[in-house]
């Protein structure tokens, strides 16, 4: 069994219509799939010339990450998205399929580390940043990365998990994004939280909601533990009293 310890100093989450702690309290008590929506979070804290190219995925990442990074410099970032900028990829592929020239903006911002690049430019942040695309347990893999950064001496690490609603053409293959969402965690050294990894040979049932959303009831104090199984990996989150 492997264990990491840490504190979650602050967190933020966003989904269409869900923004405040009260919104998430209510959702966590009775989780439902949200209606399809084009709503994007407010990122008016960024200058208009800078935010104009941001996709909803980038806006979600910025809206949860920015307030957590407020007043902090040298804050390493772990960005996690399993599917990434699927709407941009789909547009590029559609243009290719019809022999249309590709949009340089779409192309340059479709790569997986585009968001951390934008983050670095807009914040003047030169700390280590990582963009991960793991399986369904990307949240936990990102936590390992954040714990490693703390272990190397970082006073804090920012973790942002976000997923965009994929275009309909992908619906036969992508079934783990019930609605667009982003969760940001500001991780600091400490022992308030524990994440442990066990392996199992049994087939365990996957959680109904993506791990980052499934963690919310524990973040909100509605429960003290949370277990996420993915393939043969069993992750247990424990919040110490």
């Amino acid at each position, binding site marked *: 069994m492997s264990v990491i310890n840490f504190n979650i100093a602050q967190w933020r989450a966003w989904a269409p219509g869900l923004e405040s702690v009260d919104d998430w309290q209510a959702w966590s008590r009775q989780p439902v799939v949200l209606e399809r929506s084009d709503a994007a979070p407010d990122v008016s804290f960024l200058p208009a010339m800078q935010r*104009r*190219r941001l996709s909803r995925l980038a806006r979600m990442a910025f809206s949860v990450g920015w307030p957590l990074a407020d007043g902090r410099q040298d804050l390493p970032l772990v960005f996690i998205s399993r599917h990434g900028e699927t709407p941009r990829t789909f547009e590029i592929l559609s243009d290719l399929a019809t022999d249309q020239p590709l949009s340089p903006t779409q192309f340059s911002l479709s790569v997986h580390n585009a968001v951390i690049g934008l983050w670095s430019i807009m914040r003047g942040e030169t700390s280590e940043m990582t963009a991960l695309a793991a399986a369904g347990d990307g949240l936990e893999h990102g936590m390992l990365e954040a714990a490693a950064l703390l272990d190397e001496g970082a006073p804090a690490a920012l973790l942002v998990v976000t997923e965009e609603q994929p275009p309909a053409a992908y619906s036969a293959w992508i079934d783990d994004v019930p609605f667009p969402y982003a969760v940001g965690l500001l991780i600091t050294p400490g022992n308030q939280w524990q994440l442990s990894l066990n392996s199992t040979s049994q087939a365990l049932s996957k959680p109904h909601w993506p791990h980052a959303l499934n963690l919310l009831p524990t973040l909100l104090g509605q429960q003290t533990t949370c277990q996420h199984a993915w393939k043969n990996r069993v992750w247990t989150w424990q919040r110490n009293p």
Partner: protein
Amino acid sequence: MSDLHTNSLMLEIKELIIEALGLEDISVDDIGDEQTLFGEGLGLDSVDALELGLAIQKKYGIKIDADAKDTRNHFTNVASLAAFVTAKQAA
């Protein structure tokens, strides 16, 4: 070429710039005919240059040689772009 034609072409190019580059807070009245587009002036960057080049090629069915020396001059401002489009379409 009439002034009327030039003016409507310049207006069209301004609308194209706003739409293709996502300049949500800017209207056509905010872009001067002779205002520098890149760097200073409107403050567009190199990705904008590529994106605008693509939008102009698509809209006016013309070919732009990215490596040609004078291409940079054509993209100086809206007036130079309008002159470039007119010349290309006449060619």
